[in-house]
């Protein structure tokens, strides 16, 4: 039954450190337990290493359901508490449309088109962020 399916990688999602920023690349289909593990790993790494930002590249993710959506939102909230910012980068159109239809607009989440754009966003001083960032209050 399982032939032909790409076997998801078990264990940890690699977390890469680039200067002040942690880069996480999610790929393919994740076990729930891996997402939880990542959440834990990230907060430990942040509190240990004093990074100022986390970029989660999800351009290789084909589906975000409410579980993964919640994990992303929680990671963002956690890093905020640790005085760092999280940017989710590269969400595919089909994934975004589906999330909105599902009812999850994740209003608190910072987003960027690409990891590069996310890095730029994190390089900016903390002010009410621009496009691609947290939603501004309309005047």
């Amino acid at each position, binding site marked *: 039954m399982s032939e032909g399916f790409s076997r998801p990688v078990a264990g940890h999602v690699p977390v890469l450190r680039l200067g002040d920023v942690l880069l996480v690349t999610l790929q393919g289909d994740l076990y729930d337990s891996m997402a939880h593990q990542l959440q834990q790993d990230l907060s430990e790494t942040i509190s240990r290493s004093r990074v100022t930002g986390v970029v989660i590249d999800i351009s290789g993710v084909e589906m975000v359901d409410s579980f993964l959506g919640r994990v992303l939102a929680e990671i963002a909230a956690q890093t905020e508490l640790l005085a760092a910012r999280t940017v*989710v*980068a*590269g*969400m*595919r*159109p089909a*994934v*975004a*449309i589906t*999330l*909105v*239809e599902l009812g999850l*607009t*994740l209003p608190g*989440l910072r*987003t*960027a*088109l*690409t990891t590069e*754009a*996310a890095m730029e966003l994190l390089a900016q001083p903390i002010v009410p962020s*621009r*496009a*691609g960032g947290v*939603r501004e*209050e*309309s005047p």
Partner: protein
Amino acid sequence: MPEHDTGGTLGTPAQEVGGFLRRRSEQVAQRWADEPLFRTVFTVSRDEAVEAGKAIVDALAHVADTQRVEDPDAAGFTGVREQLARMGAARSRAGLSATQVSAELAALLPPVENLLVADLDGQEPERVRECTTALSVLMGTLRLVAMQTALSEVQALTDRQRLQLLEVATPVIKLWDGIVAVPLIGTLDSARSQVVMETLLEAVVDQHARFAILDITGVPTVDSLVAQHLMKTVAAARLMGAECVVSGIRPAIAQTMVHLGLDLGTVKTRASLADALGYCLHELGANIVNAAPDGAGRR
């Protein structure tokens, strides 16, 4: 499917007609090949027309065998539906109306009927009448099947065109590096909104656009459904890391929206496409200034 011996004249009139068609398949097809319907559709060679005719005669014989002469869903027709559709479509393309195509199909009856009557020579007049009736019912059903098939072809064509129209009606324009826009014209229904959303978001990825402008100047009405779709598009764009601006909400529409209690909420809106572009450029760090106080470009 009842077995039939080729020379048989037993059984019901329908079965008799079936046996006749099987026996005379070649002759019927030869005669049909001279009828306008076959002559004009199969232009490569007369043989081609005869072959096509034989396929239809075989199908009719099969239907007659199963005694379902008045049933357009009879299994025997399945094999020739595609061919009938092709013939009907060819005639429509030649400019014939449905009525004319139907008349051409009706013209296929007399040649077969003549053959049948000749074949039944010497039999009881009552029997002959029953058999010709069965045949004309069968041919009527064939006509029905052909028209049915043609109609579903038309439906399929309409559906395809509808889809094409949806795509054509949604051009995404790159206004500047990092800024794309869709000028929407005409009524936005749910299907079209879906296409707009997908097309715009694809363009955001392809063009690395940080800004997407939805210009609704050409949209006559905005009801709650449309407003909902606009908000969904904006929300999806934001999840991808782009900002979506809605421009061109005409005063009348603004009024209706207020009346309906529609709230575009957190959606960024601008009066005109120009204002929206100005806003996006400003956000990208490029400011537009008028060269002179009375200079051109005042909006």
